[in-house]
């Protein structure tokens, strides 16, 4: 039963599997156009909502497959890593992240992809990321209480928060995403064509 534990398959297995997963990840991000800061930031100026579309289609696809496999008993959800909730650090961090995203034009994964395609600005962005992370290490002592305790609720999923069964939450997310896709297509038609970013319709 899944998930598997590649560490038991030999010392080669874990590195190899993760390099292959990374290749798939990087390949798809670049295919989607996310190696371009102009394409990425178009999301925030509403003329090309590919960021929202790709992200929510990916979440829908993985979520349906994961919860489908859990339902038929092939995947053990308790063995899967679910990021624990640290509500306030995640909200404050997310807001700041969004500000930095608009200014810098990338997020960490897409910056690595852009740098791998020799986008010079992405090298500067990645340099900023590294120094920002270094800076956080030295900031931690001052904000330790907030970082560790503010809204720390442990592992908590949306079905638990809303008190519903997982299939109901999955259905809710599907409906939310479909609504966002429909709204997104409408906004794109209203704001401008996405032709200038070279997207294949």
């Amino acid at each position, binding site marked *: 039963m899944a998930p598997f534990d590649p560490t038991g398959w030999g010392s080669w297995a874990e590195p190899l599997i993760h390099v292959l997963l990374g290749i798939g990840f990087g390949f798809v991000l670049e295919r989607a156009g996310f190696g371009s800061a102009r394409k990425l930031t178009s999301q925030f100026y509403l003329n090309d909502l590919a960021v929202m579309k790709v992200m929510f289609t990916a979440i829908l696809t993985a979520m349906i497959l994961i919860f489908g496999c859990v339902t038929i008993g092939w995947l053990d959800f308790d063995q899967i890593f679910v990021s624990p909730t640290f509500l306030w650090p995640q909200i404050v961090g997310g807001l700041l992240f969004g500000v930095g995203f608009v200014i810098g034009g990338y997020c960490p994964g897409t910056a690595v992809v852009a740098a791998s395609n020799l986008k010079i600005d992405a090298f500067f962005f990645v340099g*900023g990321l590294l120094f920002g992370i270094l800076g956080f290490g030295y900031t931690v002592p001052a904000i330790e209480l907030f970082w560790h305790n503010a809204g720390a609720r442990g592992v908590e999923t949306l079905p638990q928060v809303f008190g519903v069964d997982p299939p109901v939450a999955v259905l809710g997310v599907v409906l939310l995403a479909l609504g966002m896709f429909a709204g997104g297509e409408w906004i794109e038609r209203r704001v401008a064509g996405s032709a200038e970013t070279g997207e*294949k319709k």
Partner: protein
Amino acid sequence: MGPKSEDSLDTSGLERVRQSRARHSRTRHSRTRHSRARPYWNPYLSGVALGFVLFISYVLTGHGLGASGGLARAVTAVLKVIAPSSVDHNGFFASFGGGARSPLDSWIVWEILGVILGGALSGFLGRRLFPETQRGPRLSRNARWVIALAGGLIVGWSTQLSRGCTSGQALSGGAVLAAGSWAFMFSVFGGAYLVAYPFRKLWR
């Protein structure tokens, strides 16, 4: 001529308009390289492909994808060479590789190497792999470099506050319905839309 050939004529005409628009929106300097670039995948198709990669990751390894965690390990590894004691005496850095442990001994480091390879491969096949500075039409190249560095600083700091970025939190946590990951994701969009207008001269 039947209606069938009329349809195909119409499509190729639209395609020509689209390509010509794409060409004219580029700077003169890099027109040739840009016009050789192949179109991106449809966003919904890209999303399904990304979702499959994420699902395979959960099945094979029990965890999702990530990016900022690998960079934090790279930072710690360099710091450990320059000033080993500052890694051991700081709880944040020590958690990645204090004492005898190597900060680079983690799956996420291998995954980042893969991301570099996969990104470069896709860009090469799509004729998008060439040196270039991605910037808005009003921004000079040097100004863009400084701005990119500043944006990176903010994003780098915040990824550690939120314990992950758009890959590890929004995408991976989102797919397993982690509550905090969803709070993070909506905060990212919220923060970005809040400042998009005041910063519009960077991109428009």
